[in-house]
């Protein structure tokens, strides 16, 4: 009887201790998205996609040259706006409401935006990148059980990632950024994960508060002309 009890205890305990530390969760996640080695080989990512805004199509392109530059372009009806971030400068240009020339980012915004230069994602070698992580247990995200992982980024913006306990994919990210002195919370849901020829797994659908971005093309390690990061 004692032995049965003991083995039952062990059995129960085995279920209890599954994935208890942040590093274990991060490793499971990284394995699910192709492994750290595959990600470390990523030097640039170009993502092209579309978003439907009230039935009209908006084209979005994001190009990240690891550590050197990031550019997001938004095109609607032949009009294109952009956001550029480099280690030393950044610009915003949103002509849709009549802006006529790009505006330089403030030092504070630039510092917060530095994480965008990471083409590999913040969890690959997070400690070396200067981020810290905390596992905040499990939480239900729209009915899906997730690990709740808080990443305190070197740039100062905390990001909470919700990692599906079944697939180990990040299905939601909540970031807090400062804009004009106010804290702004942005929730992004990720889905449509797909394995690319480079061995990495990426989400091809991102749902933002104003709509869903569907990725139509991903180019990994293509040549990126650094000139595009100049205003």
């Amino acid at each position, binding site marked *: 009887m004692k032995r049965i009890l003991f083995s039952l205890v062990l059995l129960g305990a085995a279920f209890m201790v599954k994935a208890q530390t942040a590093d274990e969760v991060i490793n499971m996640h990284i394995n699910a998205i192709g492994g750290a080695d595959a990600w470390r080989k990523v030097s640039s990512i170009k993502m092209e996609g579309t978003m439907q805004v009230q039935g009209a199509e908006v084209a979005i392109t994001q190009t990240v040259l690891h550590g050197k530059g990031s550019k997001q372009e938004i095109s609607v009806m032949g009009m294109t706006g952009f956001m550029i971030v480099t280690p030393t400068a950044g610009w915003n240009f949103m002509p849709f409401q009549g802006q006529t020339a790009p505006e330089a980012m403030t030092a504070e915004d630039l510092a917060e935006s530095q994480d965008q230069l990471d083409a590999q994602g913040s969890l690959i070698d997070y400690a070396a990148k200067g981020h810290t992580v905390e596992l905040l247990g499990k939480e239900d995200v729209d*009915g899906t059980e997730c690990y709740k992982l808080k990443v305190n980024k070197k740039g100062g913006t*905390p990001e909470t990632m919700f990692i599906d306990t079944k697939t180990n994919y990040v299905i939601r990210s909540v970031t807090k950024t400062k804009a004009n002195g106010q804290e702004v919370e942005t929730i992004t849901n990720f889905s449509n994960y*797909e394995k690319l020829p480079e061995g990495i797994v990426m989400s091809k659908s991102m749902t933002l508060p104003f709509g869903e971005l569907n990725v139509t093309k991903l180019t990994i390690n293509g040549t990126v002309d650094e000139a595009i990061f100049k205003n």
Partner: protein
Amino acid sequence: MRIRLAFLLLFGVSAIASFAQTTINSSTFGMMEARWLGPGTMSGRITAIEGVAQDGRTIYVGTAGGGIWKTTNAGASFKPIFDKYCQSIGAIAIDPKNPKVIFAGTGESNMRNSVSIGDGMYKSTDGGDNWTKIGLEKSEHIAKIVINPNNTNIIYVAVPGPLWSSSKERGLYKSTDAGKTFEKILYHDENTGCADVAIDPMHPDTVYASNWEFRRLPYSFNSGGKGSGMWKSTDGGKTWKELTNGLPAKPFGRIAFAVAPSAPQNLVAIVESNETGLFISADGGENWKKQSATFNVVSRPFYFATIVIDPKDPKRVYRPALSFSYSSDGGYSFADASNEGGWVHSDHHALWINPNNTNQLYLGTDGGVYISLDKGATWSFVQSLPVGQFYHAAVDDKKPYNIYGGLQDNGSWVGPSAAAGGVSNGMWKAINGGDGFWVQPDPSDPNIAYAESQGGNINRINLTATKAVNIKPQQALNEEKLRWNWNTPIVLGVANKKNLYMGSQYLYKSTDQGRNWTRISPDLTTNDKKKQDQENSGGLSADNTSAENHCTIFTIAESPLDEKMIWAGTDDGNLQYTLDGGKTWTNVAGNYAKAGIPAQTWISSIEPSRFDKKVVYATFDNHMYGDHKPYLGKSTDMGKTWTLMNSTEFTGFAHKIKEDPINKDLLFFGTEMGLFATLDGGKNWFRMKNKIPDYVLARDIQIHPRTHDLIVATHGRGILIVDDISPIRSMTKETAEKEVVLFPTAPITLTMGQFGNSGFPSTGGWVAPNPPSIPPIKYYLKDRVSSGDVKVDVYDTAGKLIQSIPGSKRKGVNMVQWNLSMKPPKVASGGTKIDFGAFLAPMVLPGDYIIQLKVGDSTYTSKVKLVHDATDKNFTLEDRKLQHKTAMEVYKMHEQLADVVDTINAKQKLIKDNLSKVKDSTLKRTMVAYNDELEKLRAECLATKQKSIFADEKKLREEITELYSGVSGQEAAPSNMQVQRVPVLQAELKKKEQTNQQILKKYDKQVIDGLKKEGLIPTGEKKGF
């Protein structure tokens, strides 16, 4: 013991083994989330306010039943941050050194009859994003938390403890490790708790605390006794001495006190006693002196337990109580706040003063938060906190329907379930004063509703004139004095909607809107005289406001199947029914007791089934005897035998059981700590989440018979609505096991949105979102889709794709809204501004459409019928057809113009890319001329000059859009002039097309040939792009 352990483990293992099976729970309902209707116009009781001294604009507001709300902008907007936990908040404290560290004590200590309970202390280390429970789970009520400013690991917590029972879980607690452990450091006995604590900020080992002996029974309460007293310690709580010099003779009741932060030898205290008064001390509490005090300063000590001294000025004393009083001379004299900025709701419980700008005050009342910028002289109301405390809710059948309900200390209101631009505060209408409880709209007279204030003061309200007629039944000759509950039931017939019921100890019925009443029962209560001594209730301060009235009828229900079958439940345990409209009554109290439901509980709700006359459900609330268990009973034999329904999910005492009118196995159960549902008649229950706070105080539940909306009246989060619960009804275990289910869509009336458009955004306050203005397409996903796409394609019957809509991928029920329109046209691109014609599409015509849901590689198909609203005389089917025809003509013009502009853009790009490379100067000149003519044409096709949104520049594209949006953006036939405008613009367009052709003819071949010759474009290419 061992065997039990093995059993537990076996259960654990089997639970893990059954993981693979899909259990129906809140996640099954996916996007069917609650709308928070609010309103914010009458808010709810505020119990704690604390702000971050370092920034003066991050403020936490604790509420009586709506959790904690946080603002980071000094009150312009708020967000709830405690929705997964107990919703009743007693105290909040912020670590003065690290303002990201917040402590929250649950269970308020404004010990009125309707007070909720807490489940301990919580801590956040990230400004309220995440919380951990840290102890004192059985404290039930927490009055105050203070932190040593020099060593913030030291925390004191004043715990009055359980209100309805004796308990050792009370007293003053101290933690020296930032909340990891707590030690009780001041305790009198199991009937005496700690009501207040303060520390001397300059000598933080000096601690003051007041003990309070108090108790409530269902029919009376007592504040005061030998346990109450004022205490002081100078060694951080190791040793204590009682402070008595100058204080009145004991016994004391509740003592509220404050230490002046800037001169902490000064204290003020309101001491409840046989001579309740205000006392001040100038020597650290060693000696006290009584002050003359106004009625407000000393009123209702058990309920008004707040007194605050300005952080900088020791003479400025604030007494938020029945009204708001302040003193500028240390408490010698008081003045009352002015109502210059609007009436300040009575009954105050919390005050925060910004220590760095002591003009700025935040006040918590029974009706919400107020802000003062002039030290409390005038106040403005914060309209964005939807934390109203409803007791009951009812609905009418208007379109959109209205919700009626009564609130704790906030009267009775009516507001719409939807409105153009959303439901804002101003759309709610107050229809009756006092505390509000039951409100019933008259189903046969849309101008009439019945509402009441405490103690059965019922009025018939003319809703148009907002005038009331008192229709309270009166004591008849030789009758006992009528006993009306605080929350007297007013109920309408279900089988016969003309019947209006209300109950004292007797049940009354009226069939003529309360003009005449008939008593239809004997005394249905136990009529226990020991429970009827309310005139002596209150303890040291008499307090008899009808809140303790007892031996009364508390709930009434007419069977939906038979108007002669009426059930009535009392607050003292009787559950009775009549089968003959009240001639004879049967008491089944003895029967339910056999099922393990305690005697003399409050019968909080009764639900006779609409499917079977013999079936009845009832909820039993025994919390006033210190028992918080949720008692939910079902009888299938008219109350002869009862089964206690139970679930490990249940928390909180029971308020309401509701049977779905269509699916007999779908039941909803509301308690003091959650809303629960079952789909199998009560075998398995789950907690309703989906934007419903996990531990919501769910007091009443309605299901709208037309819209199938679930309406929850909460005691702290206003009205919550889950729109159209039909998918829940069809959700069986078999359905839930399927990977994907595309639900059938009922015919949809063609509309651009059923709630209209108000044109302007809200100017603030609480605005509730509307239900979907067009019925959505619904589908169920067994699991969240992480790989593969989800979309909904709509085709017409000819197989033409009308729209492709991205689909959500959530676990459970998903909803995608098709706007019943086509894709917007391709609009000429470029120019200086975005043309909104590109965002507008004509509505499709009535008929059948095919819905194809694509999940990864699988496709699921269904049909939807779109119908024209034949009742709309202002927009006939002929009108619709003409509108569609005209809109499509203009739509086509947009696409034709886009083709012209596309050609121009391509040619101009070719010229721009090559001009600098061209060597031949003639070719260069030709290209410049070509470009100039193209640009001239382009500038006629669309606005290319004015960039400012304030400078209109109207060219052909903009002209087309004006006509296009006029015709297709409204639900009306086009006007004669709109129709006549079409050929005019068509002629203009034709000209542009011709000009374009002429320019091409003139230059294109020449330029292409020249570029080929110079080797700038491949020779095989004819058009250059």
